[in-house]
């Protein structure tokens, strides 16, 4: 898409020769161009020296963190400032031609190096061996669709992308509808449902291990909430997270707990935007609350439901943290696709297979990508 040269704004200015109008003019012109090239280079160099300091492992941690934050934040402003100074040095007639590329250049360079190139590269690696060197044809994909853990991961992930959005959107919709009739206390109730959205998957998983905790006999008392309830009911405690295949559902509950708030907030806003006149008219005509919900509310906000569900499906497709933090996915049969990818990449060191698994994820998302672009073009056409 682009090359690194766009980072240096003078790239265009040096290509075209200016009309010659005497020696001093050329001298000034050259000086300006040199200045325009030199300033960003010096800026980069200065930043690089500070980054080297950050690698120093013996340095005081607090100082390193402080310097890191300062350099990271100030550095990006400094780079743009330096590039703008460089433009000012260019001969006037080139300035406005170069400037847009200074504005979009850094973004395009980063996206090319860190997104576009990797996507192409990952697809290539998926046809290569463990070190990513020799081509092995479709072997990795054959592995993806025959390995027993991969097959389980695909089944489990299918469960995640169906059940999590279904549960989260249903509960979110029900809660949004109920809270809408609450009058007072609505915003507090919504906040409390939305709150888990603020914490990390790791934090949420840690939180829920406390609910699922289990200790076998003679290994101490059971302090997990679920087993507390079991004991209270006179039942034997259960090793919840090892109960195949139900432990998968228990992990999904964590994600539902986190994401329901999101569905609820978006759906609630959509419900609020339904004109009151329509709802009142239906009620006057004798529709029951359930009929109002099914025949008016749901059809009206259907587009929003579709969008929220798509978002949840994408999220569930990429679920990794919960399974990874809870641990022992292979032994417990809780493997999922994204977790397999990291496992083959980091633990088994097989880049080819890891890349093939990533490609499977990518292919699953491509339809959404095309849908996005199509929608965008339609919107732009209207604009």
């Amino acid at each position, binding site marked *: 898409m682009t090359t690194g040269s766009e980072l240096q704004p003078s790239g265009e200015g040096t290509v075209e020769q200016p009309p010659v109008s005497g020696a001093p003019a050329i001298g000034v012109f050259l000086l300006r161009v040199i200045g325009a090239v030199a300033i960003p280079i010096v800026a980069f160099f200065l930043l690089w020296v500070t980054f080297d300091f950050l690698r120093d492992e013996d340095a005081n941690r607090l100082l390193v963190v402080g310097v890191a934050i300062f350099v990271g934040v100030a550095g990006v402003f400094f780079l743009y400032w330096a590039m703008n100074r460089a433009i000012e040095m260019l001969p006037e007639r080139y300035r406005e031609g170069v400037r847009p590329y200074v504005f979009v250049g850094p973004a*395009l360079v*980063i996206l090319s190096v860190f997104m576009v190139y990797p996507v192409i590269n990952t697809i290539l690696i998926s046809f290569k061996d463990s070190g990513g060197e020799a081509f092995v044809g479709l072997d990795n994909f054959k592995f993806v669709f025959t390995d027993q853990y991969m097959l389980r991961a695909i089944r489990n992930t299918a469960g995640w992308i169906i059940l999590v959005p279904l549960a989260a959107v249903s509960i979110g919709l029900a809660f949004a509808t109920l809270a809408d009739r609450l009058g007072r206390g609505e915003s507090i109730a919504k906040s409390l449902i939305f709150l888990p959205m603020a914490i*990390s998957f790791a934090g949420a998983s840690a939180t829920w291990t406390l609910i699922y905790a289990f200790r076998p006999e003679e290994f101490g008392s059971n302090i997990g909430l679920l087993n507390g309830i079991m004991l209270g009911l006179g039942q034997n405690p259960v090793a919840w997270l090892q109960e195949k295949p139900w432990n998968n559902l228990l992990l999904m509950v964590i994600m539902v707990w986190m994401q329901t708030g999101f569905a609820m907030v978006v759906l609630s806003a959509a419900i609020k935007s339904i004109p009151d006149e329509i709802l009142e008219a239906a009620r006057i005509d004798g529709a029951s609350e359930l009929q109002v919900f099914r025949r008016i509310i749901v059809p009206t906000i259907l587009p929003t439901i579709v969008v929220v569900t798509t978002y949840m499906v994408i999220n569930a497709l990429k679920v990794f943290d919960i399974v990874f933090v809870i641990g022992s996915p292979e032994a417990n049969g809780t493997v999922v696709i994204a977790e397999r990818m990291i496992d083959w990449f980091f633990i088994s060191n097989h880049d080819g297979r890891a890349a093939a698994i990533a490609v499977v994820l990518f292919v699953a998302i491509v339809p959404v990508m095309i849908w996005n672009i199509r929608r965008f073009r339609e919107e732009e056409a209207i604009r």
Partner: protein
Amino acid sequence: MSATTAPPATEQIPVRGAKEAKGLEPRTGSWFVRIAVLVIVVIWMIPTAGVLITSFRPEALVDTTGWWTALAHPFETSQWTFENYRLALDTGGFASAFLNSLAVAIPATVIPITIAAFAAYAFSWMEFRGRYLMFIAVVGLLVVPLQMALIPILRLYSQGAIVGGYYVFPDLDLNGTFLGVWLAHTAFGLPLAIYLLRNYIGSLPSSIIESARIDGADHFTIFWRLIIPLSVPALAAFAIFQFLWVWNDLLVAYVFLGGSRETRVLTLALQGLVGREGENWHLLTAAAFISMALPLLVFFSLQKYFVRGLTAGAVKG
């Protein structure tokens, strides 16, 4: 996707008033509604409450009785302690993990927003070749799963990229450095940031930009003096979204920064504790709450921006 998840209607949680204002107040508060809402809210609060209560109980009690037993006599002060937090922060290494999280999250928020704001301005108000196609590419990148990028970026960091015997990308040895994580987070956050900010900046009235041009201001000045101040709501919403995303991230930090005690961030430190078969409940719960403290603070103090940022940032690779 995010095109439709970012309507202005989805901006705030507290959506009271609209109906009351019209005096229509539909069938509020039947008992069924109140009880149903209450039940759901209580269920949703239980996990967090369990962690909070456990984190303040002494180890011996945590280990022998369920946290709910503390509710039977909440005012017995002997059953509460701060010791777990002291232990987690100090010997558990969560103080330095907290610092590392800050060192990752603050620049990884500021850098993408700055870069995206410049790009969004150019996409909205500057004429240059390839503008439309470049932006289409950004829209396409919105949903690319970041798993697609991990292997190549890690290779770039550790060996550079060589084409035909020349370094196209130098071997910078960025693995395990803050810069490496910032750049990765910047790249993963950029498509969405550019997309959202362009929507916002592009909808500013063209008259103000034109009149500034007539007054002789160049694009840099217009951007800095005019566009940035006008875009504060959008910038704040995205900043909160990106900050929380980075703060709560486990995968990117795990891949590019690693889990060593020196460099690990909060989520990784927490993962290390859970991994130990959960025999340190007093530490684990305190640590979990330390990792949640900042997000919860943001949530309660900046709720309006928080919700706006999250709903707008619905889709991210």
